[in-house]
């Protein structure tokens, strides 16, 4: 028999904790957005190498066909770009996923989209407040900025790739990759 005091003490010693019941490596929902090592650095790189140039191009009224590199911001265009089949292209997809102005229903599907796409997508989440920052330079109606890497500065690309981890969603892997067609050849081996 323990006294009431003892029970009280034991209860007081327990603290409330929250455990992620559903998180596991298969679904990997904690790592849905790949980890970015230094978010501020990525933001500065983006501004220096891309946004400033885009702003200048727009100010000089150069038609969009003549721009040195592409930039896609519309959701439907991003979606159709990512659903291309059999292309060896590489893209960077910057997403303002921490800003309250970006619809969460759309954000939920972005990591899945970029993972399942047959194009090599580097998904980069931007820190809070980036939407307002980018809006100063260009229009960003959905908080998405897709940059095909073909004509981008290779040093910029390398720096970005160093900062961002690879996306890993095991439950989608069988849908992304075709299963290998392994066949057996009937043969005979000598008895030992």
């Amino acid at each position, binding site marked *: 028999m323990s006294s009431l005091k003892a029970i009280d003490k034991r209860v007081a010693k327990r603290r409330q904790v929250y455990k992620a019941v559903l998180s596991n490596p298969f679904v990997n929902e904690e790592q849905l957005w790949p980890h970015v090592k230094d978010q501020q650095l990525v933001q500065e790189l983006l501004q220096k190498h891309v946004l400033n140039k885009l702003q200048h191009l727009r100010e000089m009224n150069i038609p969009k066909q003549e721009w040195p590199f592409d930039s896609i911001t519309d959701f439907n265009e991003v979606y159709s770009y990512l659903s291309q089949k059999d292309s060896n292209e590489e893209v960077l997809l910057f997403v303002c996923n921490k800003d*309250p102005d970006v619809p969460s229903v759309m954000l939920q599907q972005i990591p899945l989209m970029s993972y399942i796409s047959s194009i090599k997508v580097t998904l980069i989440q931007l820190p809070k407040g980036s939407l307002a920052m980018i809006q100063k330079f260009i229009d960003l109606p959905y908080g998405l900025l897709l940059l095909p890497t073909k004509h981008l500065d290779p040093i910029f690309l390398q720096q970005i790739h160093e900062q961002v981890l690879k996306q890993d969603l095991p439950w989608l892997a069988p849908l992304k990759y075709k299963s290998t067609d392994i066949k057996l050849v009937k043969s005979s081996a000598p008895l030992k």
Partner: protein
Amino acid sequence: MNRTQRERFRDRHLRQKYDLLHSLPTLQTPALAGLYLKSFYNATKRYDITLPSEITDADTKFCGNCGLVHIPMVNTDIEATSHDGQESLSFKCRHCNHKASFRSNSIESKLSSVAPTSLSGSPSSAPQNKITKSTAKGRAKKRKQNSLNNLLANKKKEQNNGSSASLSSLTLESFMKR
């Protein structure tokens, strides 16, 4: 079973059901999705676990009709449409052809009205931007407000307040009273 064992069993039980839901598209058996989703929800109910709204809201993570987990480009088509200045996002399940659309106000207009400095974003303006969903609680509240009793009470209140100084109604009666 003691407490830790019970918790471990619960976790494993829920995780197993959750994983099954996610492996359905791979197993080429989307017809089972509804059954599995229901079983998963029942399990969370049994253990008194409240799931985040990203999972439970119909048509966001799972299809509201057949319960299949949404995977864009594989079993779901997503399209952004704008209609009368209202932007909306529509999901179409390729398995059951169920369509769902979510309305959201355009982001640009909100940003310009709030002023793009990071600190001035007032909390009052933020919720308008979020995709509007009707929750069960909200609907219940609305229903309560629209009940006959409430309408009568409101009318009475208006009469009590406004009989002396209301200019709001322009009927003949209100003029005669004055």
